[in-house]
C-alpha cells in the first residue's frame, strides 16, 4: 500500500483513500444517525440495526462497545464517529478523552484543554512521542 508523508505523525488518522476503503460501510452506517428515525431504530435494537450494514464483526463490536479509538483503527473518521457520541447525548470531550493516550476522563480532557491544550512539542513525529 502506498505511503503518505504524514504517516509519521503520531496518533493521527487522516481520511484518505486507504481509510476510505477500510471504513466505507462503517462511516456510511454512522452517517445514518443524522436521521431521527434511524437514531430511533438504532436505540431500539443496536445489533439488529447494525446487521443491516456490511460491517465486520470487529467493527460491529467496536460500535456496540463505544470503543472510539478502535473505530478509528477500523476506518471510522472522527466527524462520522461524532454522530455516535451525539446519539448517546454525551459531550464530544468524552470521545476525545477516550481516544487519548494515556486515556483521559471527560474532566481530565477538559483540564488539559483549559491549561492550554495538548502541547505540540514532542507530538510532531512518531519517534518523539509515546502516541
Amino acid at each position: 500500500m502506498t505511503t503518505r508523508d504524514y504517516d509519521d505523525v503520531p496518533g493521527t488518522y487522516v481520511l484518505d483513500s486507504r481509510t476510505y476503503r477500510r471504513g466505507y460501510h462503517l462511516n456510511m452506517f454512522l452517517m445514518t444517525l443524522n436521521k431521527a428515525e434511524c437514531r430511533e431504530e438504532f436505540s431500539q435494537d443496536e445489533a439488529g440495526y447494525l446487521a443491516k450494514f456490511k460491517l465486520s464483526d470487529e467493527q460491529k463490536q467496536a460500535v456496540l462497545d463505544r470503543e472510539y479509538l478502535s473505530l478509528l483503527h477500523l476506518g471510522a473518521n472522527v466527524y462520522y464517529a461524532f454522530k455516535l457520541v451525539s446519539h448517546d447525548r454525551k459531550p464530544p470531550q468524552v470521545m476525545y478523552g477516550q481516544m487519548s493516550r494515556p486515556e483521559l476522563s471527560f474532566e481530565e480532557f477538559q483540564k488539559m484543554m483549559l491549561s492550554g491544550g495538548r502541547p505540540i512539542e514532542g507530538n510532531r513525529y512518531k519517534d518523539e512521542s509515546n502516541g
Partner: protein
Amino acid sequence: MAKIIAGMGTSHVPGVGAAMDNGKTDEAYWQPLFAGFQPLRDWHKDNVPDVNIIVFNDHATSYSLDNYSTFTIGVGEEFIPADEGWGPRKVPNLKGHPELAWHLVESLMADEFDMAVAGSLEVDHGCTVPLSIAYDQPDEWPTSVIPLCVNVIQHPLPTAMRCYKLGQAIGRAVASFPDDITVGIWGTGGLSHQLGGERAGVVNPEFDKTFLDNLTADPLANAKIPHTDFIRDAGCEGIEMIMWNVMRGALNDKVNEIYRFYHIPVSATAYGAIILENTD
C-alpha cells in the same frame, strides 16, 4: 458594481452554537469567549453587507463518502439548518442570493474553477455558527448568504494555494457583478485543533499566530503551506485553515486588520477570529 467590503475569519466550533442555543454563555467556561466576540459583533452591527459569502466545510452532514465535491456553491433561494445528529439548530433559515451565486458559478467556471452547484443544501454548524458569532440571536439573519463548501475532510483536498486562487477568482467575479451591492466574505474553521486519535487536543498557538500575522501581511506565505505541515503542526483538523485562504484571496493585496481574537480552549479547539477591511 458589487463590492467586497471586508473579510472575516472565524472558527466554527459546534459547541459555540450549542452554548448559545442552550443559554450557557454566561457560564465561566464560555464567558471569556463571548466577551471576545463583543467587539466583533459591534463591528458587524455597523457593517452589514447585502450578501455574505460563507466559506465553510460540511462535516458529514449533507455530503459523505458516497458523494463529495471539492468546491460547491449554494445557488438556492433558501438554506435550512441541518440535523447533524442532535436535531437541527433552532436558528433562522438562511436566505440565499441566487443572482450573485449564479454569477459566481458562471464567472468561476469561465475562470477555470469547475464548481459543483447545489440548489438545495442543508447547512451544518460550519455555516450557522459563524452567523451566530457575528449576529447573535436575531429573528432573521440581517444578510443573504451564499454558502461555499470546501472539502477539507476527505483527502485529496484542494491545496492551500488553490484555495487562495479560488478566492482571487471570487474577487474578480464579485467585481464584475453589475448590481450595486455590498458583499462580505467569511473564511471559517480552524485554527489549530485535532479531534481524533491518541493526539486529540493538540493545539499550536505559535503556528496560529504566524498564520494570522501572514493573513494580513503576507497571504502568499499561507498559500504555500503544504497539507502535511498543517496536519503535523496544527493538528489533523487544523487543515480547515485553508478555507481562510479563500477569504483572503478575495480581498485586495493590502487590507486593514480591524480586530483579532484568540482563545484556548473551545472544546478541543484553538479559537481564532479576525476582521480584515478592504482598502480602496
